[in-house]
């Protein structure tokens, strides 16, 4: 099961079994954003609370909660995401999302199912380190699971847009 162990690293299974920031926030003041994975029908809900929405990208994410249901990959990815962005600025969260999605994006030739270990991503996104999230790198070997890994992040990007009214 060597292939599988690339996908299911221990840290991923840990976040899946003990998700961080699981739950809901009161809306308002928080915003609530739903994201679907059309391939499987799973759904992630991201609750965001900012210190001051008017500050736009400089607003700080004071609290975050994750709801919905999904597989180990989507749930652990969202759990790690919540831990990584909490207490940081909207701008930093955006950069991290972009950086994470770049890590997940596979090159066209690799659509045939070959590995993509050489994905050109740096280990940090602006001020925030990828950290645990790096464990999700193995997902690119399983193209159908990439949407699982990015589901929370796409929902986050929608969420910060809604929260800051952009």
């Amino acid at each position, binding site marked *: 099961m060597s292939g599988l162990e690339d996908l299911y690293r221990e840290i991923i299974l840990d976040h899946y079994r003990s998700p961080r920031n699981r739950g809901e926030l009161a809306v308002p003041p928080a915003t609530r954003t739903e994201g679907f994975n059309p391939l*499987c*029908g*799973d759904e992630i809900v991201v609750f965001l609370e900012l210190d001051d929405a008017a500050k736009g990208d400089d607003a700080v994410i004071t609290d975050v909660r994750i709801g919905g249901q999904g597989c180990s990959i989507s749930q652990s990815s969202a759990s790690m995401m919540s831990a990584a962005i909490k207490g940081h600025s909207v701008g930093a969260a955006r950069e991290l999302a972009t950086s994470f999605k770049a890590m997940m994006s596979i090159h066209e030739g690799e659509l045939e199912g070959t590995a993509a270990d050489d994905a050109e991503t740096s280990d940090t996104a602006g001020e925030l380190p990828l950290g645990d999230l790096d464990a999700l790198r193995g997902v690119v070997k399983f193209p159908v*699971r990439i949407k699982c890994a990015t589901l929370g992040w796409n929902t986050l990007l929608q969420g910060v847009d809604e929260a800051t009214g952009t």
Partner: protein
Amino acid sequence: MSTADAPDAATFDVASIAADFPILGERIHGHRLVFLDSAASSQRPRSVLDAMDRYYETTHSNVHRAAYTLAERATNAMEAGRTTVARFIGAADASEIVFTKNATEALNLVARSWGAAHLGEGDAIVLSVLEHHANIVPWLQLQQTHGFEIRWIGVGDDGLLDLSDLDQLLRGSKLLSVTAMSNVIGTMPPLAELVERAHAAGALVCIDACQSVPHLPTDVRALDADFVAFSGHKMCGPTGIGVLWARRELLETMPPFLGGGGMILDVRLDGFVPAEVPHKFEAGTPPIAEIVGLAAAIDYLDAIGMDRVRAHEVELNEYALRTLPARFGDDLRIYGSHDAELRGGVMSFAFCDIHPHDLSQVLDEHGVCVRPGHHCAKPLMRVLGVGATARASWYLYNDAADIDALGDALDAARSFFSI
């Protein structure tokens, strides 16, 4: 198909059937392929591929409207396919067979042609919560412009339809559209009773037979239904071909759906005259090679016998319902009825709180293909109270060893996630 390809009529020899399906020789991650996803799409025997190749290599040209030998051969091949389909489902006449690209198009045709002509404010139709999206979304779309009511037959904990308020649901409705076999939990609604009660209430009956025509003997006249839809790719045929059957008188009263070549008698700048049935509903160049392939698939199934296919699947149901719960106890939850006779060869389940997608991924590592997801039946998922299930489904080329392989792979998944 040459009779040499046909299995011995006296025994159901799965090994020799499986040998007819080239793909079943594939190896996945070093394991033999254990294909348990025929409810999504079946595999094809070599005779089907050969029939299509032969068609392209000796016969192809566009059909109808041409006098030369090749065009006549192609037309004959297509119309012979229509006759084969008609015979297979017991249609009164080949002209009652309308070829579409898949069952989904067939159901859309019913909604957009018959439905758009007959449904409006104040009208009602009846669906069940078991339905595949293909038998829901076309009606929701039509509802947006035509504003009729959709009433829903519910499903009980046993996975069976709750028919307690059926008469009330049917009262004043114009159509009952219902699956012959749930693609998620295998439920087979009592069609004879449903048809009788719907007709008594003055409603027509449309049957989504996607999961039944491939797996059971079908006789549309005995069924006394009004519309029956199914797809070729789930019954050993190619992709790109579906069928709508309807009684001829009904087809004749329906307006055309797609417009274009082949479905008209005349076209002027200010209007057109539709052709006869079934051509009225077959705009554009038809899926000719796919019709030939479907006919070859039917020949293959017919040589085996649909009653024997069904009996084999019931045996596999029994085996699975007996061995898997014994092995996994509460770790395994099988949805729907636990009576092997009451269900199709499709089994949705939950296992150890492992998400179906994760489960399928681990099973695949052992060569076992099961499908995770909502199976295009989100309303039913809500009834089951889950977002997704894992689903294993069997067909004539599966045997008890495949179900054992599923069990072994489930075991491995349990240890992998150490739950």
